[in-house]
């Protein structure tokens, strides 16, 4: 992992008045790597990810994509660089249907500049069927869909375009077991396609099997970044809760090698 990282977030800060939501955090992400970002509710995970997706301006720090310093002033800037995000809130427009949401902000148009609803419907049908074969009600406003279906639309929107970095903020929060398994399969598939993934969660069991590395935040600070082989679930739990590793900790894989 010595080559230039796909994403490098360096010394990122975000304050809200007196609250330090993100406090001098540096993380990086390589191609084909899944990094689990863990921490309690309110630890600052969403803020850090929103900064990377261009939805929130940082108070300080620098972002580099493939070694090149970038400045995201709106989500489109990040999307243009291949950074796609599945927001915790899903960010769907309730009154629009699935295809309209899938293409929101980058609608397909006909030669005359009209909306090409036919093409968008066709594309939506394909990508949604890939994620959930039972997805049929493509003409219903998304407000009338189930939590799982809404989540699937948000996921589809993030992988349909030319994605290089995928941010998944609690992607399985609204999903049942079979859909969660589908997301896990999808993550593996995207990883082998060389996409770098930030997988945000407050539940370690969700992410432990999928990640190459875990990064833990506590009260806005980065308290640990470990290869998944180095740590046990208990170690990570200790990082999440106390903000530090157990006193007697040593890297698990090294211990085994001794």
């Amino acid at each position, binding site marked *: 992992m010595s080559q230039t990282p796909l994403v490098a977030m360096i010394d990122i800060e975000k304050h809200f008045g007196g609250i330090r939501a993100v406090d001098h955090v540096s993380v990086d992400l390589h191609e084909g790597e899944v990094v689990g970002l863990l921490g309690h509710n309110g630890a600052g995970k969403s803020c850090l990810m929103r900064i990377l997706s261009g939805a929130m301006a940082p108070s300080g720090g620098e972002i580099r994509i493939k070694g090149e310093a970038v400045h995201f002033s709106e989500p489109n800037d990040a999307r243009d660089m291949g950074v796609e*995000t599945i927001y915790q809130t899903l960010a769907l427009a*309730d009154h629009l249907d699935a295809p309209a*949401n899938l293409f929101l902000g980058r609608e397909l148009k006909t030669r005359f500049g009209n909306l090409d609803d036919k093409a968008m419907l066709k594309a939506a049908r394909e990508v949604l069927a890939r994620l959930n074969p039972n997805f049929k009600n493509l003409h219903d*406003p998304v407000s009338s869909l189930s939590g799982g279906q809404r989540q699937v639309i948000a996921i589809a929107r993030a992988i349909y375009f030319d994605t290089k970095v995928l941010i998944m903020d609690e992607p399985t929060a609204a999903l049942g077991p079979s859909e969660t398994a589908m997301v896990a399969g999808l993550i593996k598939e995207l990883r082998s396609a060389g996409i770098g993934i930030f997988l945000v969660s407050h539940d370690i069991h969700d992410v432990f099997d999928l990640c190459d590395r875990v990064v833990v935040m506590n009260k806005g600070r980065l308290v640990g970044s470990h290869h998944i082989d180095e740590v046990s679930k208990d170690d990570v739990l200790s990082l999440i809760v106390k903000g530090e590793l157990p006193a007697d900790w040593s890297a698990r894989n090294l211990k085994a090698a001794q």
Partner: protein
Amino acid sequence: MSDATKSSKTFDVGDLIPGGAYIHRLSALMTLLLLVVGFALSSQAFFSINNGLTILLQTSVIGLLGIGMTMVIITGGIDLSVGSVLALSGVVSALAVKAGLPVVPAMGCGVLAGAACGAFNGLVITRLRIPPFVATLGMMLIARGLALQITGAVPISGLGNAFGILGNGALFRMVEMRPNGFPKVIFPGIPYPAILLLIVAIAGAYLLHRRQIGRHIIATGSNEEASRLSGVRVDRTKLYAYTISGALAGLAGNVLMSRLVTAQPSEGVMYELDAIAAAVIGGASLSGGVGTISGTMIGAFIIGILRNGLNMSGVSAFIQQIVIGLVVIGAVWIDQIRNRP
């Protein structure tokens, strides 16, 4: 696949908005029919061609304002300034005619003045983060004040025949000269304001449902934060909606002043309420994301016919205000019920 072809062809929004909106529009249409039947029974003169034309003319002004209002309401906003902007635009057009401009460019100036007022609204709302209610209430006073100030509160008359064509002319009007020298109207024709309303309504529906900006208008009103995260330029979208509303208020002002062949700086007071009522009766939701041009057209006719019918039945202007006030409250109340989870 059959529905794929269907959705790409129809102009209608049936597949974009909840089924409840259909029912709402249907009930509005039924109300309209009931009003027509009721007034026709209560007054002989109501159901005549001449009165029909009067209704068309009155409705065209409410309708033009209502189309712009619908766009603004769909973004989740409100435009209280349209009545005043209408007056200011009419005055600007008249002054341009007085300054020697031909009628068409002069009226263009009026529409531009309206668009400028709308753009100002949009900028105040998006840049200064002032709520639409307050921003457009301010513009309501500013535009009215401007109109009264530049005219000295005196109507501008003597604008020439050409100025009156838009408001008083008609297409396919057939007049026969009778042997005694007096003309006889065979077919009164389709008034220009009605044609203008039809064109603008079709253009509005096209914009809202076939163009990207229309989709962004709906998305912004539906969930502003989600739209922003999805890459919709929310501020630009709102600016667009308010500018259209201002421009259409300008157009409505020209129609009205042309009708009178006089620019009245005090014209159009409270018209914003008629426009809001038309949009809400037609199914637009004040919480944003929902609304159709066709619905607003039905709403505009309900308001127009209600006013006209009450007049024809000899109901006093005071009672009319009470009735319209109750109708507006009723329409918003229905909107509230619809939005209750």
